[in-house]
C-alpha cells in the first residue's frame, strides 16, 4: 500500500503545486527569495492542516447524513452534551493552532533582517505608474504600462505579457540584498511582486521598507495591490534580476541615457524628431487622460485638439505642463520628465490633430522656463 500511496501522494502534491500549469495555476509559487519561499512553505503547512481537519469534520457530517437519516435511524438519541468531548475539542484545536503559530512566527521573524543592504531603491507610487530611484546613483525613471490601448480595447490581439509589461523595467543584481523604500505621490498604492513574496503599501508622506535577495536571474512581474483610482489595474511592475556585472553595465547605460538626454537638451531638434519623440512620449504620459486622439473626456479632462492652450500662447502652454494646474488632475510634469521629453510633448500637442501651429519647442526652452 505504501509503495503506491507515497508516489501517488507526491504526484498529487506536484499536480497542485506545479507552477508550469500557468493557465490553470492552482497554487502559490515558491518564488525566488527567502520571503516567497517562507510564505509558500507556511502556506502549504497550514493548507494541509486545514485539509485534514476538513476531512475529519466533513467526514463525520457525511457519515451522519448517510447513516442517521430518519429512514435509516428513526429513533433519535437524546444526548445534548458531553463535557469531556467538549473540553477535548477546545483543547486540541488550541494545540493545533500553537503548532501552526510556531513555524509562522519563525518565518516572519526571519523576514525581519535589519542587516545592512547592498543597495537601495526608492519606489514611489503614482496614479498610475511607478517611479524608481536608485539611491546614491542619480538614476531614476518612471515605469509605465506599455500594453497598447488598442489591445485593451480589443482592437488588436493581446500580447503574451498583456498588462504585465512596462516601458522601463526596474533592474536589480542577483544575490545582493536590495532594500526597497516605498512611498506615494498621491494615494495609497501597494508594490507587489509575487515571485519575491514582497508586498508593501506605498503611503503618501511616509516610507515603508522591505528587501529582497534574489537568487535567480530572470524577469519577474507583479501589480499594484491597493485600489488607487481608475487605472489601479494598469500599473504593473516588471523587475529584471541580472548577475552583478550585467546589472552594473545596465546602470552605466542608464547614466549614459540620462547624460544623453541632458546633452540633447542643448542640441537643436528638428520638427520630425520632436514630433516622433513627442508622439510616443505623449501616448505614454498624457493619453490616459487627454486621449490618443487629443479629444480628452468632456467634463473630466480637457481636449487638446483645437484647444486654447495648445494653439495659443506658447509660454502659457509650457507653464501648464511644467507646473500642473493646482486643484485639478493635471499633475506637474516638470519634476517628472526631462527637458527633451517635455519639449517633444509640447511640440507634438501644438501640431498634432490638426492643431498645426508650426511651433517648435526646444529642450533649451524648457530648461530656461524652469529657472
Amino acid at each position: 500500500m505504501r509503495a503506491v500511496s507515497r508516489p501517488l501522494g507526491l504526484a498529487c502534491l506536484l499536480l497542485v503545486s506545479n507552477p508550469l500549469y500557468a493557465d490553470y495555476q492552482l497554487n502559490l509559487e515558491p518564488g525566488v527569495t527567502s520571503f516567497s519561499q517562507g510564505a509558500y512553505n507556511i502556506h502549504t503547512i497550514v493548507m494541509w492542516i486545514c485539509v485534514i481537519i476538513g476531512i475529519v469534520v466533513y467526514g463525520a457530517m457525511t457519515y451522519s447524513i448517510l447513516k442517521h437519516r430518519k429512514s435509516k435511524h428513526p429513533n433519535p438519541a437524546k444526548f445534548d452534551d458531553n463535557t469531556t468531548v467538549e473540553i477535548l475539542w477546545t483543547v486540541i484545536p488550541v494545540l493545533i493552532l500553537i503548532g501552526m503559530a510556531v513555524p509562522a512566527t519563525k518565518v516572519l521573524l526571519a523576514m525581519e533582517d535589519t542587516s545592512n543592504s547592498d543597495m537601495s531603491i526608492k519606489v514611489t507610487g503614482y496614479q498610475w505608474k511607478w517611479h524608481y530611484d536608485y539611491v546614491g546613483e542619480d538614476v531614476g525613471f518612471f515605469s509605465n504600462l506599455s500594453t497598447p490601448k488598442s489591445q485593451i480595447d480589443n482592437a488588436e490581439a493581446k500580447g503574451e505579457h498583456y498588462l504585465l509589461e512596462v516601458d522601463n523595467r526596474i533592474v536589480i543584481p542577483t544575490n545582493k540584498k536590495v532594500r526597497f523604500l516605498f512611498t506615494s505621490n498621491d494615494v495609497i498604492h501597494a508594490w507587489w511582486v509575487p515571485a519575491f513574496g514582497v508586498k508593501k503599501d506605498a503611503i503618501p508622506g511616509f516610507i515603508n521598507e522591505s528587501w529582497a535577495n534574489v537568487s535567480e536571474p530572470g524577469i519577474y512581474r507583479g501589480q499594484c495591490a491597493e485600489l488607487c483610482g481608475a487605472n489601479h489595474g494598469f500599473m504593473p511592475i516588471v523587475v529584471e534580476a541580472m548577475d552583478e556585472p550585467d546589472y552594473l553595465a545596465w546602470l552605466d547605460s542608464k547614466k549614459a541615457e540620462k547624460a544623453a538626454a541632458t546633452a540633447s537638451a542643448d542640441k537643436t531638434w528638428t520638427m520630425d524628431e520632436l514630433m516622433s519623440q513627442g508622439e510616443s512620449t505623449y501616448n505614454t504620459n498624457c493619453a490616459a487622460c487627454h486621449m490618443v486622439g487629443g479629444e480628452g473626456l468632456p467634463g473630466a479632462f480637457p481636449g487638446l485638439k483645437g484647444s486654447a492652450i495648445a494653439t495659443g500662447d506658447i509660454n502659457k502652454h509650457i507653464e501648464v505642463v511644467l507646473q500642473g494646474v493646482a486643484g485639478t488632475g493635471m499633475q506637474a510634469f516638470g519634476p517628472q520628465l526631462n527637458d527633451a521629453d517635455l519639449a517633444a510633448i509640447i511640440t507634438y500637442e501644438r501640431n498634432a490633430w490638426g492643431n498645426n501651429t508650426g511651433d517648435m519647442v526646444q529642450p533649451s526652452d524648457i530648461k530656461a522656463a524652469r529657472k
Partner: protein
Amino acid sequence: MNAVIEEHHDHDHKPGGIGRWLFSTNHKDIGSMYLWFAFLMFFIGGSLALLIRAELFQPGLQIVEPDFFNQLTTLHGLIMVFGVIMPAFVGLANWQLPMMIGAPDMALPRMNNWSFWLLPGAFGMLLASLVMSIMGMGSAPNFGWTFYAPLSTTYGPSSTDFFIFSVHLMGISSVMGAINVIATIMNMRAPGMNYMKMPIFVWTWFITAYLLIAVMPVLAGAVTMMLTDRHFGTSFFNAAGGGDPVMFQHIFWFFGHPEVYIMILPAFGIISQIVPTFSRKPLFGYSSMVYATASIAFLSFIVWAHHMFTTGMPVAGELFFMYSTMLIAVPTGVKVFNWVSTMWKGSLTFETPMLFAIAFIFLFTMGGFTGLMLCIVPADFQYHDTYFVVAHFHYVLVTGAAFSIMAAVYYWLPKWTGHMYDEKLGKLHFWLTCISSNVLFFPMHFIGLAGMPRRIPDYALQFTEFNQIATIGAFVFGFSQLIFLYLIIKCVRGGEKATSEVWEGAQGLEFELPSPAPFHSYTTPPEVK
C-alpha cells in the same frame, strides 16, 4: 394554548392602506418590510455583481470603463453589506424575537418603524449617485466599500459626501434597531424564560446588538472625520497636516472587523435553530454555544489589524494580531463541532431549510479555513488584496450568511404566511444556488494564489479560464434567485395549510402559535416550561 384563545379580543384586523406600512408599529409588518427591502437590494446589488462578472469574463475592456467598474465594486459591497445582509437579519429579528420570547412586540415599536424607514432613504441616496453617474453627472463612490483615505478624502468625487450622509443614516438605523433588540430581550421575556432558556437565535441577536452599539458609532466617527477632512480643514488622514492615512484604516477596521461578526452571529443562531429541528434532537452543548458566541464577539475587537498586514506594521503588532485572529478559530470550531454533534445519531430529514443549513456548515467552514490561512502573516503578504481574499469573504458571507438567511426564510415562511412553500421548487432553488455559488467562488482561490489582484477591471491572460468559470457560475446563481422570488410570492398567496408546529419536532414558543401567527401575538404572556 391560552395565547390563542385570548387573541380574539385583541383585534386581529390590520390597519389598511399605505398607512399600514408607513406608520407600522407591528414587529411582523416591520419584519416583512425589512425582508422585502433586503430582497430588493439583493437583486440590485446582484445585478451590479453580474455587470462586474460580465466585464471580467474576458481580458480586455468590453463593457465598462475602469472608473465605472470601481463604482460598481464599491456600490456592490456597500449594498450587500449594509442593504442586504444586515437588514435581512434585522427583519428576521423583528419577526422572530418577540414570538420566541413570548412578547407581544418589540420594546420600542415606534422607534422600530423609524429604524426601517431610514433605510430606503439612505439607499435611495446611494443608488441615486449611481444613476447620476450613468447620466454623466459625476462618479458615484468609487473607492471600494472600505473607502480608504486619501483616495476617499482628498481624491473622492462629489458623491462622497452623499455616501457619508448615507452611512450616517444606516448607522442610526442599525443603532436604534440594536437598542430595541436589547431592550426587548432584557425586559420582555415571558415569565419563566430566564437567559439560559432563551432560544439560541435570541442569544446571538442579543450579543450582535451589543456589537452594533459598540462599533457603529466608531464608523460614524470615521466618516465624520472624512467629512471634516474634505470640507472643514481638518487633517485626520492627510500627512500634510500632520495626519496619517493608516490611522483611517485602524479606525475603519476597528469598526470593520466586529461588523463582519455582526453579519455572521445571527447566522449561527439560525443554524442552531434549524439543525436541532431537522435532527429531531436538542442542540448539542447549549451553554457552550452561548459562551462561544460571546467569546467570538469579544475576540472580534482585538483582531482588526489583520486587514493591515502590508501597511508597514512592526513585527510585534503583526504577531499579536496573528495570534488573536487564530484564537477565534477555537470558539468557531466549537460551534461547528456542536452542530455536527446535534446531527449525530439524530433522525435527519432534508427539507429545504436543512439543506441550506447543512450547506452553511460545509461552506462557511471552507471560508473559516481560508480565514485561518489569511491570518498567517508571511503567507498573507501573498494573499492580501488578491482574489484569495475575495473568495474567503464571499464564502463566509454568501454561502455563510446569505445561505442562513435563505434557510431562515424557508424555515419560518410557513409560520409567517400560514402556507407551506413548494418543497420541490425549494429544493431546486437550493441545488442551483449551492452548486452555482461554488462554481462562482471556488475558482477565485486559484486566481488569487496565481497572482490576480482585487478591484481590477482587466487582467493578464493567465487568469482567463477561471474568471470565465466564475462568471458562468455568477449568472446561474443570479438567475436562480428568481426561483426564490417566485416561490415566496406563491407561498404568500396560497399553498398547503401549515400547522402550528410546521416541522415535526420543532421546538420554541413561535411553534405554539397558529400559522400564520396572528397580527398581535402573546398579548398575554405564555407559560414557559
